[in-house]
């Protein structure tokens, strides 16, 4: 007879096994709880596999929980059939009976089998296509709601627009100024190293000015807006979708696009040129500080800037920024309103808002580069 004995001195369950020509006998003693089950499980399974007939001697069992009952029932199913001996009628028998009954309840349908690779590609394509169609539908809904508001501007929730302007704009000023200043400093320093070799340090304001006003200012401001505001839009609207607040609006006869999306879109579109301008100014100041350390007076730097950049550079950059803002707002709101159910859906919506926002502004930036080149700006 082999017995599994634990090292601990407190009363714990033991299992003794006996196998002969008449079958296998497993005798359990002590409290058969989750801890004992975890300890005895591997050996008990080994001994019961193919044991015919299997006898489970439970005369020594003093307590039984669901895990212990699961062990006994699994042994029974592994052996095909088992004889339970010595289990007194009462609470222990009740636990065993109830667990047996619960495990016998009909199970749900198994998850669908994995599709073959061709089917999988087809499924992904269909899903992407449906997603794209719903995005186009969302753009259409937003355009219709926007035009409707142009015809009846008093319907726009101005207080809501102001709240979003404050959240997306005013509260982002500090971060924008800090990042703009640092980008100006970094650009000026990095460019000064190769330019010094050619004695061309005086052209640093040209490089930094054009880079910031035309490209980096709007782009960096858009990245800030996407990270701060796009994700916030998605999370807020996603939570409202999960909580069925958006459905409640629809049932009240209120268009959620006009009620929830338009104020956010307007705020994002209006705030972006301001953020980009702040980014430009802070970057130019940063560049000016670096030029000062290189021995160039502010007057010289300003004169150089005036010669290098024009109003069209600034205006082009600010226009791009406004379009970036609109795009980030659209992506964020669409991600929020398209959220699924459950807490994970809100996280997914926020992630797709940030990723989608950044991808969209880079794509738009490419389009603007070609457009401005064709227009000769």
């Amino acid at each position: 007879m082999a017995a599994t004995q634990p090292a601990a001195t407190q009363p714990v369950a033991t299992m003794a096994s006996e196998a002969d020509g008449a079958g296998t006998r497993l005798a359990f003693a002590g409290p058969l709880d989750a801890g004992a089950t975890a300890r005895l499980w591997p050996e008990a399974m080994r001994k019961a596999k193919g044991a015919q007939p299997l006898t489970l001697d439970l005369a020594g069992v003093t307590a039984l929980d669901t895990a212990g009952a699961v062990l006994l029932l699994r042994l029974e199913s592994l052996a095909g059939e088992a004889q339970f001996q010595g289990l007194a009628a009462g609470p222990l028998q009740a636990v065993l009976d109830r667990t047996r009954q619960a495990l016998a309840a009909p199970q749900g349908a198994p998850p669908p089998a994995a599709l073959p690779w061709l089917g999988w590609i087809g499924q992904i394509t269909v899903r992407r296509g449906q997603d794209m169609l719903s995005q186009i539908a969302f753009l259409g809904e937003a355009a219709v709601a926007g035009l409707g508001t142009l015809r009846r501007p008093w319907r726009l929730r101005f207080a809501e627009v102001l709240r979003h302007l404050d959240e997306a704009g005013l509260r982002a000023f500090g971060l924008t100024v800090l990042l703009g200043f640092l980008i100006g400093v970094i650009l000026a320093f990095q460019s000064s190293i190769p330019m010094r070799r050619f004695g061309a340090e005086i052209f640093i304001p040209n490089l930094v000015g054009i880079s910031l006003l035309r490209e980096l200012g709007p782009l960096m401001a858009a990245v800030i807006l996407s990270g701060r505001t796009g994700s916030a839009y998605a999370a807020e609207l996603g939570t409202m979708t999960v909580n069925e607040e958006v459905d409640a609006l629809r049932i009240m006869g209120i268009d959620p696009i006009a009620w929830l999306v338009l104020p956010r879109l307007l705020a994002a579109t209006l705030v972006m040129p301001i953020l980009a301008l702040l980014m430009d100014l802070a970057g130019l100041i940063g560049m000016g500080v670096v030029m000062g350390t290189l021995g160039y007076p502010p007057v010289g730097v300003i004169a150089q800037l005036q010669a290098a950049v024009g109003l069209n550079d600034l205006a082009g950059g600010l226009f791009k920024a406004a379009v970036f803002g609109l795009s980030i707002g659209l992506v964020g709101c669409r991600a929020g309103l398209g959220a699924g159910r459950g807490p994970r859906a809100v996280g997914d919506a926020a992630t797709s808002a940030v990723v989608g926002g950044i991808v969209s502004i880079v794509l738009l930036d490419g389009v603007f580069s070609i457009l401005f080149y064709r227009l000769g700006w």
Partner: protein
Amino acid sequence: MAGPTPNPKPAAPGEPPGETVIRVDDLAARFGGRTIFEHVSFEVRRGEVFVILGGSGCGKSTLLKHMIGLYPPAEGSIAILGEPMGGVSGAARTALLTRIGVMWQSGALFGSQTLAENIEVPLEVHTGLPPEARALVAQAKLGLVGLADAAGRLPAEISGGMAKRAGIARAMALDPPILFLDEPSAGLDPITSAGLDALIKQLARDLGTTFVVVTHELQSILAIGDRCIMLDKEAKGMIAEGDPRKLRDESDNPTVRAFFRREVLA
């Protein structure tokens, strides 16, 4: 890991009451200077279904959250299984927490995990059970609350009543000797609610599991409650304690009478 789960024989009617497993002594709850309740004292005995009842906003759920150690008492003390709830920490606190199970009012299921995985969480953390055993225990618990066919579904894919039942299954995962249920019957259909009441009575009778149930469902209170206390918003504390059926028939407190008879309080 959960301690051994004994299967004591619960006290039958007429037998002396079981040992005290929860002792609440002169408890007060205050938030920002606002008193929710004070001078609340009672004992819960092993194997009984103890009901905390009262009108909306009287502090029933707040009392439950004090009992499970989520809120520190403003005054007084709470002892669970002889351990002061606020006085243990580290491994001792974890050991104590494995001996209680809580079903939250909303279910509080983990949204990114299936119902079976939800139940396996405490088993994985607090027992050394192999995955096959954990899966079978989860299946048994779900079968017990009638959700065997929903094991693979996410909480977002089930109804509110199913979420409540899954919450009970998760609370029972470690077979704790004490279960706290916050509004278990609210929002359930009468058949499911009656089934749940029967399950509570059965577990209390067969396993000696102690239940502390917060509810204001009259039928449920009368069906399952061995003893109860009643909290009152105006009195800011307990206004009654005892057998709910006796309180219904014999109490001379107008609020208690109005509660049990569904009357408008004058």
